[in-house]
């Protein structure tokens, strides 16, 4: 990696990405679907000269502006901020590859803003046709921005032919592109209706109007949940084999996936029986529950989408620990520290005798010298390796996936083997990307933190060998037979 690693105790830096991204998508999908809702419904209300509904729509537009233009837009910038901090190599990689995709998306953001403001603030000042046109311009621009960003996020799960051709369009129109556009468009419809229910159930005093809103918004919501389910299924069918295995292998993701599909189906059924067939269910309680369902399904979907990429951030290209996949052989040959900026500069400063700097600025690390250091120094260097090779996914002593707890009671041999073959231990871990000497040093660090077996257990204490065990239990293999 070329950048310093941001060590966030307990949480690990990438978890902050997940946090901000989840919050953002809940609003950004509404920013797309809500725009469509406002365009369609305002046009409908104009056609029927429905003043009551128009008054409600205007109120809703204000809520929409306050939520999407401020919170939605700023948290969107927030994702950009946090990926640069917590995942700089992958971020740089994506930006260099798709900069003009983002620049184009920016154009649509500007249009969204202008049309959105015009739609709300010039309500009643624009003639009806122009007013509705503003709504449609907003909706179209918002949907296009969804499509543009989806091309890039879908690329991360499956870059298609890009690795061979390095062609923007091959990367953008990747195998995951259409399924994800479909699912996200569905989520936009679904969430928009959930927000409408939420807002209307609190703000709309006229019961007849509320029933009317309930019924009308049930249709896009049902369409949305159908799109989410079919897009999700399609997405699943096209997943790379490793992601499918991750999905099936990891209990949490598995369960979440089922929860998500179930939720979507439950929501669809509820919508059909309730608001669509028998309007009258809508109350603040119902709306909150529904919004909760919608948010849960969307957040879960995003979580899964992130989780199944492991060990990659960008499939086959950038590994979860900020290592370019193509560099792994080189790092194994020459050393992780040698190929990683900040650690090598750190080592050169801490143990100058171990590092030779060549005239072209490149470095060579004396690995045997490193192994010969006193334990304290080895452990410290091991910590450097841990930070840059493992801390993306593992906290150290406590917190997310904390290393210490995973190692409880392990023997040195087990730890050493895990360090050398993490991808064999759990195939969603990146492969070891350093030399044997470095693996030794990382093992020193991990053994230094590894806790003994908890007290009071049958196998408690420092009993690794067979004879130890026999001594402890008090009988031999023969007796046990």
């Amino acid at each position: 990696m070329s950048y310093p690693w941001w060590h966030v105790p307990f949480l690990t830096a990438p978890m902050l990405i997940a946090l901000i991204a989840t919050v953002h998508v809940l609003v950004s999908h509404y920013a797309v679907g809500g725009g469509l809702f406002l365009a369609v419904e305002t046009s409908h209300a104009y056609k029927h000269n429905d003043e009551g509904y128009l008054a409600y729509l205007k109120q809703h537009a204000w809520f929409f502006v306050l939520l999407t233009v401020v919170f939605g837009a700023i948290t969107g910038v927030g994702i950009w901020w946090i990926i640069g901090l917590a995942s700089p190599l992958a971020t740089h990689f994506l930006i260099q590859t798709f900069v003009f995709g983002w620049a184009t998306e920016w154009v649509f953001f500007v249009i969204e803003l202008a049309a959105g403001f015009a739609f709300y603030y010039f309500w009643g000042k624009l003639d009806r046709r122009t007013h509705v046109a503003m709504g449609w311009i907003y909706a179209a621009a918002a949907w296009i921005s969804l499509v543009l960003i989806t091309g890039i996020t879908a690329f991360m799960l499956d870059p298609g032919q890009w690795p061979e051709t390095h062609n923007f369009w091959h990367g953008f129109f990747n195998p995951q592109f259409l399924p994800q556009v479909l699912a996200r468009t569905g989520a936009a419809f679904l969430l928009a209706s959930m927000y409408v229910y939420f807002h209307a159930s609190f703000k709309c005093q006229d019961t007849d109007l509320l029933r009317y809103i309930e019924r009308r918004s049930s249709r896009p919501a049902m369409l949305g949940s159908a799109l989410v389910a079919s897009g999700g299924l399609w997405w699943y069918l096209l997943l790379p084999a490793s992601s499918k295995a991750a999905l099936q292998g990891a209990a949490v993701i598995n369960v979440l996936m089922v929860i998500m599909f179930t939720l979507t189906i439950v929501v669809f059924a509820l919508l059909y029986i309730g608001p669509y067939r028998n309007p009258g269910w809508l109350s603040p309680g119902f709306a909150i529950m529904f919004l909760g369902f919608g948010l849960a399904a969307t957040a879960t979907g995003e979580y899964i989408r992130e989780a199944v990429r492991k060990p990659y951030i960008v499939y086959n290209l950038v590994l979860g620990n900020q290592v370019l996949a193509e560099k792994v052989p080189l790092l194994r040959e020459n050393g992780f520290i040698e190929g990683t900026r900040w650690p090598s500069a750190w080592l050169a400063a801490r143990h100058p005798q171990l590092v030779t700097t060549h005239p072209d600025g490149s470095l060579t690390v004396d690995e045997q010298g490193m192994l010969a250091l006193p334990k304290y120094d080895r452990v410290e260097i091991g910590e450097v390796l841990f930070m840059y090779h493992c801390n993306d996914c593992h906290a150290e002593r406590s917190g997310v996936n904390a290393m210490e707890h995973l190692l409880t009671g392990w023997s040195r041999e087990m730890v050493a083997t895990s360090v050398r073959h993490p991808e064999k231990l759990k195939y969603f871990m990146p492969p070891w990307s350093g030399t044997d000497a470095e693996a030794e040093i990382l093992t020193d660090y991990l053994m230094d933190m590894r806790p003994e077996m908890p007290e009071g257990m049958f196998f408690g204490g420092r009993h690794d060998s067979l004879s130890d065990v026999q001594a402890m239990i008090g009988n031999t293999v023969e007796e046990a037979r």
Partner: protein
Amino acid sequence: MDPNGLIAPVNELGYPAPFWFLIFFRVLGFTLHLLPMNLWYAGTITAMLLGLSRIPEARRFSARLMSQMPFIIAFGVNLGIVPLLFLQVMGYRVFYSATILMAWQWLAVIALLCLAYYGVYIYAVGLRTAKQGQLKAWQRASGWASALLFILIAVIFHSAMSTMADPGSWPAIAEQTGRAAAVYGTAHSLADPHMWVRMLFFFGLALTTTAAYVSFDGAMLAGHETDDYRKWTRGFAPQLYTAALVVYGIGGLLYANSWDAGLRDYMTAGSALPFAALAAIGPAIPLGLLWLGRNAAKAGLWVIIAQFLVLGLHAIARQLAQNFRLAPYLDIAADPVKMQVGPLVMFLVSFVLGLGVLGWIIAKLVQANRKAVVSGQ
């Protein structure tokens, strides 16, 4: 640690467009960001102070600017995206590292901006709904809080840009705020006098933009206001601009004084001299227009155009200084270029079409406003 060893190596992916294209959009984008950003940076606090004035027109301006602020922020933040995108493309070798060193602060920008933005909305809604212009105490407090938050965010931006332009400071930062070659992201520049003098200089600039905007508002946007109001803007703008220039001048001198010998030579005697000089004397144009145009109804339009020019000159000089400071560590023009022609065309085409759509929207809004004036709405 040797700072040279901390600079990210050149990425083989290369620049997606020629260097001049990237730097052009970066500087243009930054200039476009500067205009609205100056208004929330120095303008919010100015508006809050003017809100305390006994002069009704001053209070009127305060209310007007704060009511416009939500739009200024929306578009200004949006315009910040362009330079940031191109900064990341061409400055990746230092940008990511600098922001990671102060990660918590940099991330705080997002939370603080959300708060400041909602604070402005609370104030603006208060203005719209208040009886006889009397805002409730908490609405007023929100306005003040936003003004201070914007200044705080500016401190963070100044820190980030200062840190980015000075890789020589990184080893010490990493040593003090890190462990095992990783960093906690807790660095800050609050103890760095250079940052503060640069901030003073920059705040002066932001204040000049605010003054230019006073005159623009009176000339172009205040059709519904009284003659007294428009007259007041023509009188107040040159005064504020002059005061702002004092801050700008003092800040500029202190800032120039903080340069090392190399940078001073480059800016005051080397090839950057013409640009530095233009940036230094540029504000004379809007200032002259302001004083001369005190009786001209539409002078404000020319003032804001001249101010935009000033901001552009500032952005160019600043870019030169930044490149110069980074030159010992890296050459940002050295990356290979791997043109992405198709995507570039997609961007340019959508950019032009987008301008068309924007033009159409604005035309419709102007038309609607005119109708409203005619029908006395």
